[in-house]
């Protein structure tokens, strides 16, 4: 197989995106959607076909040299190793389904060309992140997904809030990118190369302190993209975009880019104990924070957004406790069930007549049992119901954390288990509020396009049986994913301890479900207590940032403009000008316009000159 064929994987979506961007608006909408879907589907087929290239050490191939100067080289190059291969397959596969779904979801929108162009470009950029063999090419994708998500969040741009949400996402993630960029520059300074393979291979040469700094910088970058503390505020607002966008970008792919980056750089990251602890801590704190926020959300998509944030927290925790396979496992299962949940939410919103508030839904089970069952599968996975995909992946992470045995890891584990309980609670709360009880919405819903419905079962299957990917030995599995990634799970617990932990997980899951069942099985009426509004607003982090960052920034800008630019610099310059004018005023008085006055001047001058000559003659 020609390794250059690997470039077809990112280039097909690019081609589709550029085609739709250039001439999509002049073509029939169906054709636009078809081009978009086919290009991503083609890319999926290619990644299936080229799967063998990813075995072992993988394949590296370079198309052309992007930037080359003074000892610096950045290629448009692909590194297709096991990690990249599995991620590519997931991204293209889920993206194909979401594109299909979007073709149905956006049926009646006028601007499909723009939508699908951005969606395709997004897939291209995401694939750049996944496949890049050097950090700069990865950075291209990194910023590319940022832009596409900006464009897609603000897709319905006539409402200023949507556009603002897009801008917030772009700028907040760019603050994270800043750290990533510095790490990138620093790595080049140390190694003289930005090839991922080489950096990972030579990471051991670095000073431990520098390693920690670099890890923290990479973590900063990952936090921005993956909406982790403290750069998480953009994700809930990003739900302003169309639902397929939320599914693709803010659940399945882009937000996991941070986790992927840390996995990609794991050989480097893992060398710094402090850095790893920081990653795990950020992860588990975000998981807990987001789960607590999800408990009080009112909009269906915001619940899912916070749950995404929380689940990605788990993935960070996995990386932090040293289990790349755990992180990737959870990333894959999460991608399936979260895409399912988001697209299910899209169906729900359609059914409820464009209603977002779960307190004004209810009783949708009767309206569309099919959506209910699919959504239920998603919820079960999210809540970590035993034997679903989400259960196994989450369990592996917590097991790994527990198995480390030290006090810090124990705290991490404890918080993780607590979060699992919360997750179960808010998942079922969502389910009960939306599907059970009386119908509360006023609007009549509209019918679902078949494209929307028939893409979901596939995801549901993957979500339910995703656990088979990495089934632990306890359940008779072979941990295929861990082997594929070349990371056989180093966890070895006594059988009793493992079973005990499973039981504990089961208790927390059951507890969460039970509380949700008792409180929300029958509609409890609108609830807006004080602590709820605090959680609803995401612990008021937006307010806080507005106060300590945004407003001071505006003030500084205004000060620079009015104080620095206008008053100081221009003031000094104009002051000099006025001084000249002032002194010129005196000289001006000499110009009387009277000929006689000038002639007098001549005469005096003449006298002076003559006098001068006479004096010199006398001497």
């Amino acid at each position: 197989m020609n390794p250059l064929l690997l470039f077809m994987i990112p280039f097909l979506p690019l081609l589709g995106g550029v085609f739709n961007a250039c001439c999509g608006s002049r073509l029939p909408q169906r054709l636009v959607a078809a081009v978009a879907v086919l290009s991503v589907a083609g890319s999926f087929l290619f990644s299936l076909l080229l799967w063998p290239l990813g075995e072992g050490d993988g394949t590296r191939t370079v198309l052309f040299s992007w930037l080359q100067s003074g000892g610096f080289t950045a290629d448009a190059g692909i590194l297709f190793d096991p990690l990249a291969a599995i991620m590519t397959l997931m991204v293209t596969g889920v993206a194909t389904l979401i594109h299909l779904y979007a073709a149905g979801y956006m049926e009646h929108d006028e601007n499909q060309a723009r939508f699908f162009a951005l969606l395709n470009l997004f897939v291209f950029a995401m694939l750049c992140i996944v496949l890049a063999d050097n950090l700069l090419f990865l950075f291209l994708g990194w910023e590319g997904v940022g832009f596409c998500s900006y464009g897609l969040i603000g897709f319905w741009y006539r409402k200023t809030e949507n556009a603002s949400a897009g801008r917030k996402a772009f700028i907040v993630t760019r603050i994270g990118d800043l750290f990533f960029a510095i790490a990138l520059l620093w790595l080049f300074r140390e190694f003289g190369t930005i090839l991922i393979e080489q950096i990972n291979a030579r990471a051991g040469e670095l000073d431990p302190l520098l390693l920690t700094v670099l890890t923290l910088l990479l973590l900063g970058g990952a936090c921005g993209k993956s909406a982790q503390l403290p750069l998480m505020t953009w994700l809930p607002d990003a739900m302003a975009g169309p639902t397929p966008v939320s599914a693709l970008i803010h659940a399945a792919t882009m937000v996991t880019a941070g986790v992927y980056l840390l996995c990609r750089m794991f050989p480097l990251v893992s060398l710094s104990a402090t850095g790893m602890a920081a990653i795990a801590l950020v992860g588990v704190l975000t998981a807990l924070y987001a789960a607590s926020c999800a408990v009080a959300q009112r909009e269906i998509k915001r619940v899912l957004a916070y749950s995404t944030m929380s689940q990605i927290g788990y993935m960070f925790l996995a990386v932090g406790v040293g289990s790349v396979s755990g992180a990737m496992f959870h990333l894959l299962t999460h991608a399936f069930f979260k895409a399912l949940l988001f697209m299910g939410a899209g169906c729900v919103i359609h059914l409820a007549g464009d209603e977002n508030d779960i307190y004004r839904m209810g009783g949708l089970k009767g309206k569309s049992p099919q959506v209910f069952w699919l959504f239920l599968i998603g919820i079960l996975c999210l809540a970590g119901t035993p034997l679903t995909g989400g259960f196994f992946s989450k369990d592996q992470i917590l097991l790994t954390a527990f198995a480390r045995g030290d006090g810090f890891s124990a705290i991490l584990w404890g918080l993780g288990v607590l979060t699992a309980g919360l997750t179960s609670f808010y998942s079922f709360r969502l389910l009960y509020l939306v599907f059970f009880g009386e119908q509360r919405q006023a609007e009549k819903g509209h019918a679902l396009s078949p494209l929307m419905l028939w893409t979901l079962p596939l995801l549901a299957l993957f979500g339910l049986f995703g656990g088979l990917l990495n089934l632990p030995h306890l359940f008779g599995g072979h941990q295929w994913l861990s082997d594929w990634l070349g990371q056989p799970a180093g966890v070895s617990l006594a059988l009793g301890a493992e079973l005990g932990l499973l039981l504990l997980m089961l208790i927390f899951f059951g507890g969460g479900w039970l509380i949700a069942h008792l409180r929300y099985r029958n509609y409890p009426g609108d609830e807006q207590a004080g602590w709820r509004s605090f959680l609803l607003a995401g612990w008021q982090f937006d307010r806080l940032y507005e106060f300590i960052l945004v407003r001071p920034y505006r003030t500084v800008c205004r000060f620079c403009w009015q104080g620095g630019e206008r008053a100081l610099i221009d003031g000094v310059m104009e002051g000099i000008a006025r001084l000249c004018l002032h002194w010129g005023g005196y000289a001006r008085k000499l110009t009387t316009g009277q000929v006689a006055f000038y002639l007098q001047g001549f005469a005096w001058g003449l006298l002076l000159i003559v006098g001068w000559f006479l004096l010199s003659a006398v001497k």
Partner: protein
Amino acid sequence: MTASVAVQFPLLSLLLWLPVGGTLLCLLFRHSSNLCRWASLLTTVAVLCLSLWMGFISQGGGGWLFYEDAAWIEPFGIRYMLGMDGISLLLVLLTALLQVAAILISWEQKEHPAFFYALILVMETGIIGVFLALDLVLFYLFWELMLIPMFFLIGVWGHENRVYAAVKFFFFTLAGSLCLLLAIISLYLIHGGQTGEYTFALEALRQTVLNPGTEMILYVGFMLAFIVKVPLFPFHTWLPDAHTEAPPAGSVDLAGLLLKTGVYGMIRFAFPLFPGAAERSLPLLAVLSLVGIFYAAWVAYAQTDLKRVVAYSSVAHLGFVILGLAAWNQLAWEGSLLLMINHGITTGALFVMIAMLSDRAGTRELERLGGLWSVFPNLSAFFLLFCLASLGLPGLANFSGEILVLFGTFKAHPLWGGLAVAGVVFSAAYMLRVVQSSLWGETKDFPRRDDLGPREWLILIPLALLVVLLGVYPAPVLDFLREPVSLLLATGGMP
């Protein structure tokens, strides 16, 4: 000096004086604006074709790609000395390209079209002359020749506050130029006194032996002229005013070309002539450019006029360019020069677009714009593209230069590089603000509701293609820069 001259015909002179020919044609046909604009368009296109052809036939290598030398004013040792290396070639190409855009964007010029086009063409000669001259007097001549047409373009065809802007522009740049003139003459006299050979030739003057004090004074004289032109903080305040008041073509030339002459002057004249002083000044240059990057980004965020935002973004970008020069290594220099060319195209395109946009919307005030996308989808798409390039999205033009600058700078001075990266976030802040308040939101009432016309497509498509091409595959440009830059760094640019 070994000149690898491919063709004996004085191509450089032809290139240089072609626009003046166009000027004469314009003045000849001054009664028919139609003839005038066609004459000027054909002239600029001819210059573009000629420079492209010269790019094709020139082989790489460290020497001058083209070189001309003739006696001019013998008694004072002034020679007509022109030379083109890779850097000059790229800058001349940029000039030729943007001038075509400048003519096309002012196609409908109503007031005194003949003189308008004539001035633009004269300016083209001035700018190309600056990029080619190797004799200091010749250089100074062209340096001032750029100034005068610009003064009139702003002062006569500008907007409401044009006289203030024109005078401010003139005084700032003239004050700088006078320092330059004094320094040139002093250097000439010192060199003549030392060797007995009175000459203004760059190559000869490089051999002058200077004591550190004198060297620093002369260097400052040179640098003042160039820094004002670049413009570096805190000498930049003329730029936003000039941009705001200038007619569209003037803004394009100002941002795309005039600013570049300052950087070019530094690398071609100031640094090679006074290497010792240059080396001592690098930290100061770096500090000024860093302050400029942040300060300009902040001030840009507080602006309400579209043109002013872009003008301040120019200050920030040129800050990156100078920072790269101050890092003083191959990587950063190539990045700086690449960024300079990229910035010329991006910002030139942005000013072109602002002209089209304000023609239709009837205003440049951000608060009175909004929802442009629903009325002018094509125009808005192009505008978005150029804004993204300007905020440094990878894969588009500015990024390729910026990142090389950052790599080079960080390699030499991690602190400078690290700080400069932060500037990128701020550039996103003000650029997105522009996009937000112009393209998105509710559609306001606009006097015109027609999307791009054929002439506008013609301007924008090549610029857009270049923006993408320079972002994705800047290798051809970097190839032209490699040898000259390493020569400049090693021996001050002499082959």
